[in-house]
């Protein structure tokens, strides 16, 4: 069982962060490293300054620990913080909470329940739900956690209720059969082009998001993000990249989606929706 060295800090703006931390170095893999696992690990070993530090109080060999994709998503939330705070969200959700790093960060950024915001989160991995509970508790924030596949069981009743959804999906291109594996494999195995789970998540997000709701999702270049944006465009969503991180081999894009005809910028200077970012491949 790996011991995670705790790192204590507070939410900072990305520019101000001066600490970077190698993560994944004590990541225990009980199986031989496959191509997909090593890809996600390689991404995690690149040092990037992080915008938010959450103290990890618990870990489990079957639970994905925060890596640069997690940090990129939180940095995107921080970058969009002004809009998010003006958004006056009521219900927020993370699909695939893992260690709880992102949902905890989101709750700290947006505020606790005295502001009238309520958080839900789900993970298909029961160990992840327990680690997430501990991470939330350690930071004095609450989210309702459900052990389920994406939002199964919640979909019918939560239709049109989510104002913010965040997802760091299993995006690594893998053989299709790895997608149905249990445990930590579920955190990265994305099948062909890494899109198998993403393509199941997007229709659910369309159902759950309110009219003014926003989705923030991590993608790789390998996922063909312009095609994702096109698919979302057909569902009536505009999109833009909020954060991009590149290594020699790959680029991470955190994309924000919102329903066209509704503004995604809420700073009092109303601009028309920015439209689909990806015009060409």
């Amino acid at each position, binding site marked *: 069982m790996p011991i995670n060295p705790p790192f204590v800090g507070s939410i900072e703006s990305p520019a101000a962060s001066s600490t970077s931390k190698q993560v994944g170095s004590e990541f225990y893999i009980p199986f031989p490293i496959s191509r997909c696992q090593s890809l996600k690990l390689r991404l995690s070993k690149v040092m990037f300054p992080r915008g938010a530090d959450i103290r990890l109080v618990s870990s489990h060999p079957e639970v994905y620990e925060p890596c640069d994709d997690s940090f990129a998503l939180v940095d995107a939330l921080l970058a969009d913080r002004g809009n998010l705070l003006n958004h006056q969200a*009521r219900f927020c959700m993370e699909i695939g909470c893992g260690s709880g790093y992102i949902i905890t960060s989101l709750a700290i950024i947006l505020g*606790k*329940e*005295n*502001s*009238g915001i*309520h958080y*839900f989160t789900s993970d*298909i991995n*029961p160990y992840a*739900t*327990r680690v997430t*509970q501990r991470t939330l508790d350690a930071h004095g924030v*609450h989210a*309702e*956690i*459900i*052990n*389920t*596949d994406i939002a*199964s*069981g*919640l*979909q*019918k*009743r*939560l239709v049109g*209720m989510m104002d913010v959804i965040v997802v760091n999906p299993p995006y690594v291109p893998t053989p299709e059969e790895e997608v149905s594996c249990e445990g930590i494999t579920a955190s990265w195995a994305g099948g062909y082009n890494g899109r198998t789970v993403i393509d199941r998540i997007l229709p659910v997000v369309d159902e759950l998001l309110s009219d003014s709701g926003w989705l923030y999702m991590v993608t790789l270049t390998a996922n063909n993000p312009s095609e994702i944006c096109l698919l979302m465009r057909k569902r009536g969503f505009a999109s833009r990249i909020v954060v991009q991180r590149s290594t020699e081999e790959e680029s991470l894009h955190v994309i924000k989606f919102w329903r066209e005809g509704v503004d995604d910028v809420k700073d009092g200077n109303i601009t028309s929706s920015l439209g689909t970012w990806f015009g060409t491949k």
Partner: protein
Amino acid sequence: MRLLTHNMLSSNVKGVVNGFPLRLEASTWVEKEVDFNADFLRSVFPKIDWPALFGASQTVGYVALPESADASMLESEDFLKKFHHALLEIHVEEGALVCPETGRRFPINKGIPNMLLNEDEV
């Protein structure tokens, strides 16, 4: 699991038509204070299935909720306090959610409901 969440969960077993509400069985629950926010309660009220909330609150021994409710009651601080308590302050730690159509049990452990289906139920 709060009763708010219970109010948002339905049976996801394949082919089920009447999967809501799930019948609540609770063997262990705790009460945790949550900051009162009247605006939130008024805005969420239209989404709440009141009979489901009433039934669940009875199960955990909170009998102060009226059996039926309408929006006019949202003017009453007393009603809001009871609504707040039932919706947000009762946490079911151990128990189960039972599909009304198939009887399928979804366990609740350590406050987390498990809605994972077996292959034949998907």
